């Protein structure tokens, strides 16, 4: 359990560094390190599927951000911060933490009423679907409609980016 806390502290330090550092490329790479620590934390919590997906999605995100950072001219952050923004962020953050603490105190104990369904899935999935990976059995058999809606959401994202980036002939004329 101590490794998990070490990873959590590393992630908090990395997130603060990524916000505060001036060089944008270094900030992108620190963001990737935070994602790597999160993937290791998922692996410690015995969720290898989630760790794999998190690792790959983090790499895709870092590649996109590196490409966006290299192609832009200003690699060093130039905007100055004033104290009013800092005070506003502090007030809203304390409000958020107070409200979430109030909500978390009212939540039921972790896994107490929900384990009735998931225990059935975990015990019956191998015999009902003959698939040895229980996560694949749940996401593609019991909860297949969620996966379908996730795919539709990704497809909608593709269509939205195609529509927002304008006509295709506009790019080829510039070259």
């Amino acid at each position: 359990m101590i490794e998990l806390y070490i990873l959590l502290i590393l992630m908090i330090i990395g997130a603060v560094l990524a916000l505060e550092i001036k060089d944008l490329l270094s900030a992108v790479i620190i963001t990737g390190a935070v994602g790597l620590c999160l993937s290791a934390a998922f692996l410690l919590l015995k969720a290898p599927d989630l760790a794999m997906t998190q690792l790959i999605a983090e790499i895709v995100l870092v590649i996109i951000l590196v490409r966006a950072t290299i192609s832009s001219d200003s690699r060093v952050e130039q905007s100055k911060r004033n104290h009013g923004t800092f005070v506003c962020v502090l007030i809203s953050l304390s409000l958020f933490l107070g409200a979430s603490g109030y909500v978390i105190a009212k939540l039921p104990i972790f896994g107490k009423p929900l384990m009735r369904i998931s225990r059935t899935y975990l015990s019956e999935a191998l015999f009902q679907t003959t698939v040895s990976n229980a996560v694949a059995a749940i996401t593609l058999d019991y909860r297949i409609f969620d996966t379908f809606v996730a795919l539709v959401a990704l497809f909608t994202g593709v269509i939205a980016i195609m529509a927002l980036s304008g006509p295709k002939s506009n790019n080829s004329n510039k070259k």
Partner: protein
Amino acid sequence: MKNKPNQQIKSKTGIIDNDQAEQGMSIIVKTVTRLTVGVLFVYGINVALHGHIIPGGGFAGGAIIALSLLNLVLAFGKDAALEKLSQTWAIIFTTLGLLLFMVIGLFGSGNNSILESLFQDKGELLSLLMIGSIPLLNIAVCLQVGAGIFVIFIYLVSLKPEADKS
């Protein structure tokens, strides 16, 4: 037009320009990418096909396949990746994955239900193919996610900020 990238390689800030980044990175990155891109592609297919046996699945496999193409874009430029998989075919693959998912779901709709698993009770434990609809659904998800991330990245690369032009 051919002299233009050579003049812009070293600007006054020493930062790589947009035209030079389009052509690719240094020779070290190009050599390493040439060695690893095929391994990445085959590993993505492996993860997607074994999604019902080992951790992974269609989403992770498709994202690895998209990563190999994204590496090509980063190292060699946009045109080298579009030679492997053109923009039209990527959009066709994205749509085809989603349609395949829907068709497999419709075939399983027997008992007043939709998106039900088809030939559910014919599977063999730990076999690769004859195990029901989950490998087919994994292949569909892999097609959709891999081509979808590639299309998004290609469109984001071709965007040029208008503030730099003026």
